[in-house]
């Protein structure tokens, strides 16, 4: 008998507008010591399925119309609180996606892990401390003794995720449920965490249910895979078999969805749109009674770049490397030093009013389409705003036509103007955000991680759209991303950034095929092969 047996499980949510069937009868089982991946896009019901194993859904809003979940032969649906208590955190543990919010910010590392031990094993303080040190060493957190008293905010994302894993392992569970364990982490850290999970599973012999949207992770980690969409498992089997011979059209679509293609050819003689020399964005650190500047945070330090018409410059780096600040600095949305020439105009020294006419020609698209559209304005009003500021389109009817044309260009029907952003999916919202920038007919676009918050298949569509728009309008892009696959599909030139400085800069082909610096190589390995590079270059 399998350790975990899920049979014909269904989950429904009651809402004001009737019942939402999130999961419609899924079955899978996991043997001891085995890793299974549940893969699907957002809204496919994979997380809901996993949460129902531990009965962590918001009951009674959620309900199970049918199905059964057996952990080691014991039925979970309808089990008493006492039974659930003995299972949760002891026999089955879970690690969550967001290490920033899943640790209690007011408890130290020792308290967080200690709680698991005292609750389930009634361990004394001394014994618990010894076990905590052992666990933290096991998950590879350096300087363990010192970090026992650290609060979550004193740790990096990767370190927090390690603490989460230590918590989950505290009681030697038989099954570990990992819900998107690395999605919020940088690529190099992601590779390390995956490696850690894999080795822990081998040494502890536990079963693992891995929930992810990233096919690369599935291929690397899981023996078996189940593909979920719209609340159903459409295909499952050995990972190698599913990847090599996908049978269901959805699986085939998912596998084909990786951003592909090459950027349009760049022409070194085309006119320069944005030319930046030695740009610096330094934030002062002020100390003491008189708030004297004692030092600077060098968010962007001495970077030069040139973007030509119809050409994309990709900026690559991990979080905190200063790539977004660079984009904001170029558009003069944050104070900077150094020379910025937009076409023939020097931007530095212009005040807000003098910059306004130029703003129509240089635009920005933000990462999170959920926060970059005002929820209280209709799509039409959102796109119209720039037209009003720059007095384009004479009257309301003309503006409406311009908006419809811009929306049409990004693949949103013009009739959607009167609807609110929340009625659209993430990918559609990002298209609307692009339309807002596009309606002004800009020459230069800063794209700040425009695909990071989207599902894989949607990412590919947005990449295609961006490339298509570039070809049609000879747009110049500054494409900021941590995702090397997307950058490879779009950029002619690449800048690799770390701690505000350029590590490597050059034509895309050269950077991807023959990276010179060790950091770039580590980044590539982590991104394309999910391998952590040991040695000094990449640290947690």
């Amino acid at each position, binding site marked *: 008998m399998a350790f975990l047996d899920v049979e014909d499980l269904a989950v429904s949510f009651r809402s*004001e*507008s009737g019942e939402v069937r999130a999961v419609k009868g899924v079955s899978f089982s996991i043997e001891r010591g085995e890793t299974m991946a549940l893969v699907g896009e957002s809204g496919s019901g994979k997380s809901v399925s996993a949460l129902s194993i531990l009965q962590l859904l918001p009951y009674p809003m959620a309900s199970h119309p049918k199905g059964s979940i057996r952990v080691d032969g014991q039925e979970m649906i309808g089990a008493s609180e006492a039974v659930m208590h003995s299972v949760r955190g002891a026999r089955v543990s879970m690690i969550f996606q967001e290490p920033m919010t899943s640790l209690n910010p007011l408890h130290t590392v020792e308290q967080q892990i200690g709680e698991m031990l005292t609750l389930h094993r009634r361990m004394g303080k001394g014994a618990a401390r010894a076990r905590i040190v052992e666990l933290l060493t096991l998950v590879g957190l350096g300087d363990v003794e010192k970090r026992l008293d650290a609060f979550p905010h004193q740790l990096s994302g990767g370190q927090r995720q390690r603490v989460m894993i230590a918590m989950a392992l505290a009681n030697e569970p038989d099954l570990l449920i990992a819900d998107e364990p690395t999605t919020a982490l940088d690529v190099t850290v992601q590779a390390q965490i995956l490696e850690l999970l894999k080795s822990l599973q081998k040494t502890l012999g536990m079963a693992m249910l891995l929930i992810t949207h990233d096919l690369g992770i599935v291929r690397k980690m899981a023996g078996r895979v189940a593909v979920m969409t719209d609340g159903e498992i459409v295909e499952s089997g050995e990972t190698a078999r599913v990847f090599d011979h996908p049978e269901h059209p959805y699986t085939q679509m998912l596998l084909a969805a990786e951003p592909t293609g090459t950027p349009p050819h760049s022409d070194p003689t085309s006119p320069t749109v944005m030319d930046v020399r030695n740009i610096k964005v330094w934030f002062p650190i002020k100390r003491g009674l008189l708030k004297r500047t004692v030092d600077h945070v060098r968010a962007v330090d001495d970077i030069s770049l040139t973007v030509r018409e119809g050409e994309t410059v990709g900026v690559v780096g991990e979080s905190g490397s200063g790539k977004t600040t660079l984009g904001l600095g170029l*558009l003069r*949305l944050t104070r900077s030093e150094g020379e910025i020439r937009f076409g023939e105009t020097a931007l530095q020294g212009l005040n807000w009013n003098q*910059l*306004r*006419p130029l*703003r*129509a020609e240089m*635009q*920005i698209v*933000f*990462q*999170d389409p959920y*926060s*970059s*559209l*005002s*929820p*209280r*304005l*209709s799509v039409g009003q*959102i796109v119209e*705003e*720039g037209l009003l*500021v*720059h007095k384009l389109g004479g009257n*309301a*009817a003309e503006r*409406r*036509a311009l908006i*419809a*044309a811009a929306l049409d260009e990004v693949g949103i029907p*013009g*009739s959607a*103007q*009167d609807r*609110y952003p*929340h009625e659209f999916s993430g990918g559609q919202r990002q298209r609307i*955000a692009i339309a*807002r920038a596009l309606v*002004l007919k800009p020459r230069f676009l800063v794209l700040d991680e425009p695909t990071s918050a989207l599902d894989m298949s949607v990412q590919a569509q947005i990449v295609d759209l961006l490339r298509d728009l570039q070809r049609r309008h000879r747009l110049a892009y500054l494409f900021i991303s941590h995702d090397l696959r997307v950058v490879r599909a779009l950029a002619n030139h690449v800048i690799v950034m770390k701690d505000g400085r350029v590590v490597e800069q050059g034509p895309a082909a050269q950077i991807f095929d023959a990276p010179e610096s060790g950091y770039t190589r580590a980044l590539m390995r982590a991104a394309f092969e999910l391998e952590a590079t040991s040695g000094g270059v990449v640290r947690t």
Partner: protein
Amino acid sequence: MTTIAPVRHRLLGIPVSPLNHRRWLNLKSNRRGYVAMWLFFGLFFFSLFAEFIANERPLLVNYDGGYYFPVFVAYPETTFGGDFETETVYRDPFVRDLINEKGWILWPPIPFDYSTINYDLPVPAPAPPSLVNWLGTDDQGRDVLARVIYGWRISVSFGLILTILSSLIGVAAGAVQGYFGGWVDLGFQRFLEIWSGMPALYILIILAAVIEPTFTILLVLLLLFSWTSLVGVVRAEFLRARNFDYVRAARALGVRDTVIMFKHLLPNAMVSALTFLPFILTGSIISLTSLDFLGLGLPPGSASLGELLAQGKANLQAPWLGITSFLVLSIMLTLAIFMQEAVRDAFDPRKTFR
């Protein structure tokens, strides 16, 4: 390029944007709130014409072939063949006989206004409900129904004016604090703490003892303390939203600070501000009523629900006073709450109605 003709919606004949039309539909689909809104404003509208409903002067007098409008014009008694140069007292049986000899009188449905004393009571005042005084009289022989109608008008208009003024001031103050932050915010916050620490009721009582309170003076006095209630909410919303991506996107488009505040930040703050409005409206009505109840409010003799309430307490043997004032106040406040609840939901874009 095709031109898409905007869909034209009309509300009471006025063209409105599709969004406002949807809000209106949302409002309508909340039956309870919609009905409450019509009742509240219907009754208020009705009470605006109190002079035509409850008045001691007739609506129309036909005398000697001529038509007279005592509601609008003050006629001396001599017009109708009386003895005095002063204004006609139409309730006087002598005057009535004079007019009825050569014409007729059209009375409003309730032939009393809020200060008319009915001298023909069969029992000592307060008199119980009868065919003449439908809800009885108070302890000075004044018709309760007439006083309720006039009292409704004063209370609701006072509440509405105070709510509008204090929201305008409160939202503006909160917006400035939240958007600019820093020292502006810090200074303003400390001032607010001191200001709201003042014992408002005692100050009102002391001031009421010094100045003769009128409608306007009471409005200003209460406004001094009621505008602070919205500041916190609006400030918090502005502080939260000013770093949102869509505000940054608007800055990237070159939009001015003032426009950002009005277009992007204010609508955000509006829903939370709207959730507070019913409390401000009912609070305003209640503070006027309670000042009246304590005898510190509107000048003596004005139609006031608080005074009626006080009379009900003083005359427990006349339950119609207490019951009437209780029912009127609770209906008024309940309607206000239901109505505002519906308005708030209608502005919430995430709320979907079936």
